[in-house]
């Protein structure tokens, strides 16, 4: 029995050495789904916990009543997007095949982006101001120009450029949280050792009786 214990220590050390080699690049076997609403579309990305993208996987979209409103397939980057028909909560389910499945909830508050509405309001206001007598045509034109440039795709591009790094960082954080870390591995081994002790204790007590 002692030799078995000694061997168990030896084998677990060996397993850890192997694990060390594998762990950086290869952490097993679970699929994750990450989704966000960018003001117009619901975007989603699926990836395995090894970092590999979930390509060609089915994504089903259910509304808050559980009715399927959309389904599609992820592209080569594991990405997927669709335009939500109305505000409300949506449940996205990713099926990556062979029993792999992930789901996430996302709520859509405003179909039109709030900044867009604000801009339109401002534009109306400025134009109204411009049409008032006593204000020059030039200012109205100036105002319009400024607003037009804000409303243009450039504006979104700038926003994207500013927000993308943050989005990426959030993404990485979520990804890290989903990864298996060594603490969990040691915790599991500890629990197993504890259970072994408990089992031996109980078995021996039964033996004595």
């Amino acid at each position, binding site marked *: 029995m002692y030799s078995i214990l000694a061997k168990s220590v030896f084998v*677990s050390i060996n397993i850890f050495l192997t*694990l060390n080699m594998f762990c950086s690049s290869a952490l097993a*076997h679970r699929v994750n789904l990450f989704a966000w609403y960018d003001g117009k579309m619901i975007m989603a990305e699926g990836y395995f916990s090894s970092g590999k993208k979930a390509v060609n996987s089915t994504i089903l979209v259910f509304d808050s009543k559980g009715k399927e409103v959309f389904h599609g397939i992820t592209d080569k980057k594991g990405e997927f997007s669709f335009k939500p028909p109305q505000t409300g909560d949506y449940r996205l389910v990713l099926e990556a095949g062979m029993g792999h499945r992930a789901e996430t909830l996302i709520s859509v508050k405003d179909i039109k982006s709030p900044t867009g509405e604000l801009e339109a309001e401002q534009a109306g206001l400025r134009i109204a101001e411009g049409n008032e007598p006593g204000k020059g045509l030039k200012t109205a034109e100036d105002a319009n120009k400024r607003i037009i440039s804000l409303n243009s795709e450039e504006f979104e591009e700038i926003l994207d450029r500013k927000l993308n790094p943050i989005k990426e960082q959030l993404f990485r954080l979520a990804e890290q949280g989903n990864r298996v870390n060594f603490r969990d591995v040691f915790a599991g*081994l500890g629990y*197993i050792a504890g259970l072994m002790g408990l089992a031996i204790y109980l078995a*021996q007590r039964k033996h004595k009786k």
Partner: protein
Amino acid sequence: MHISEGVLTVPVLLAGAGGAMLGLAVGLRHMDVQEIPRVALLTAAFFVASLVHIPIGPSNAHLVLNGILGILLGWTAFPAIFIGLFFQAVLFQFGGFTTLGINTLNMAVPSVVMGALARPALRSNSGIFSLVMAGIAGAGAIIMSAAMVAGSLSLSGDPFVPVSRLIFAAHIPIAIIEGVLSVLIISFLLKTKPEVIKG
């Protein structure tokens, strides 16, 4: 190999849980005090094996080691695999709680069957033949598990043929690797500690 939560239908999950409980009961009956450390050691090995990811093949696959568990444990592979899967579900979110039963069944039944197949050969002193049987048990347990996973998915409505083709394709490299691994481990044990196998 781990089926996630929400994929299978309720009858399949219940049947899996029932089968796993039966297997657990038999396994616990076979486990006496001297057996416990060995079961715990192999539980630990099974628990970490799923982290050893094999980057070959179309999908993510990892070591399972259920063939070796079957050879070394027999029926007590059931409690070992159950506990290993439980902690994988808690700590790594592999599989899930509702699928714990069916996952246990899918990995432990091949383990017990292949173990029973290989053990007589290993007990006899037949050199090469026993190593061949160890290899067959190691690879066969994976193939049989893959078939059972495909079966449980198809019972829940997935079409059997394409699903099982995918699953087999993903697990053939693992089956080969586990076959080789069990030959290595068993030959090592036969040389150094034959009483572990012949016990």
